[in-house]
């Protein structure tokens, strides 16, 4: 019994220590102004591998989610004879919730896991410690560009996701099921507000981008430098990112749209 309590306590302490290390790590990576001549090409290269290469999965998922929303919305709303409200339903669902959340989940799976594995392997093959030996700070050379790349890419991907989804919904609703195109856009424009809906969605995706990338690079940097350690770190990245995104989404929604 006592042993169990001891183990439980040790787990708790290790978790809090890990959070502390993650905070120090973030500070170490982001503190100081990098030399733009060195930093900018590194950042561009990372945005390419993290953001541009994620574009395909984001566009395809956005298209299908928008089409499904259009189909489901139509079958339900046409029971009440108000299928013209389909545009408003699709736009609000995508801009407020599904755009940022699904993008962040896909990003964690597609790019976050790759970041963790890459950094973890660098650690396992002692590339990071050899950089330190050469007097190059791996936090600023390796981690910082990857972090900023993820932080900048997620909002862009989320915006593209929403736009493609709205277009997919129009494809099903207007082209296929015959909702009047004017009422699709008109209902949408009269009910979606730029500040409360679109900008809050952007704020959400910025927060998710920050959290997902932080978890991914930290798990890679902090992993046990063995093949089993890298695999468990990759798993942790996806699990922790997904949980963090879903939990934070509830908190952010409550703060942004809740009536208190």
């Amino acid at each position, binding site marked *: 019994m006592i042993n169990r309590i001891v183990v439980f306590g040790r787990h708790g302490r290790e978790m809090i220590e890990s959070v502390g290390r993650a905070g120090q790590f973030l500070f170490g990576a982001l503190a100081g102004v990098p030399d733009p001549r060195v930093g900018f*090409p590194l950042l*561009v*290269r990372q*945005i*390419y591998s993290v*953001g*541009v290469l994620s*574009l395909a999965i984001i566009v395809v998922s956005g298209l299908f989610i928008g089409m499904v929303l259009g189909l489901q919305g139509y079958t339900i709303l046409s029971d009440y004879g*108000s299928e013209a409200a389909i545009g408003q339903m699709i*736009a609000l669902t995508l*801009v407020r919730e599904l755009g940022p959340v699904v993008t962040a989940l896909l990003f964690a799976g597609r790019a976050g896991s790759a970041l963790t594995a890459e950094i973890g392997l660098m650690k396992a093959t002692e590339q990071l410690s050899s950089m330190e030996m050469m007097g190059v700070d791996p936090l600023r050379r390796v981690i910082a560009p990857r972090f900023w790349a993820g932080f900048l*890419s997620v*909002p*862009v*991907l989320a*915006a*593209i996701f*929403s*736009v493609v989804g*709205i277009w997919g919904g129009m494809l099903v609703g207007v082209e296929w099921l015959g909702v009047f195109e004017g009422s699709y*856009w008109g209902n*949408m*424009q*009269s009910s*979606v*507000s*730029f500040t409360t*809906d*679109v900008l809050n969605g*952007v704020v959400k995706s910025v927060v998710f981008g920050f959290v997902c990338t932080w978890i991914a690079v930290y798990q890679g940097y902090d992993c046990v430098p063995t093949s089993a350690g890298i695999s468990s770190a990759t798993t942790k990245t996806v699990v922790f990112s997904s949980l963090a995104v879903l939990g934070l989404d509830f908190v952010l929604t409550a703060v942004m749209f809740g009536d208190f």
Partner: protein
Amino acid sequence: MAQKTADLTVGLFMVAGVAALLFLALQVSGLTPKSSEDSYTLYAKFNDAGGLTPRAKVSMAGVTIGSIRDITLDRETFQALVAIAVDGSVDNIPADSAAVIRTSGLLGEQYIDVSVGGDMESLADGDTFYTTQSAMNLERLISNFASGQ
């Protein structure tokens, strides 16, 4: 991959992101680059604002001429004080016009319809509608009907 190509694709990626945001702003939320000076404010007092919400439309003869800015309680008369932002181009609403709360469809959103009066003078910024008609309350209507009043 050469750095040049990476630069180009990343640049395109960022431009696509900005374009997507612009699309969300202009096409989806219907944000028009119009200054707020383009409209003026009128007030209307209702005994019952019903399900009226801010940003609901204000129309005249079925044409949207503005939107509701906010709804507050007048603490002297205990009526709902509705501030209406009317399009600056519609500057000749007769002074004896009435503001009526209507419902679009049977269960749709509530909006304000301005019934045109015949006065030669027109309402100016900050004026209050003299006659108003409150929201139709379906429950009250049914209970009145049931009790035979």
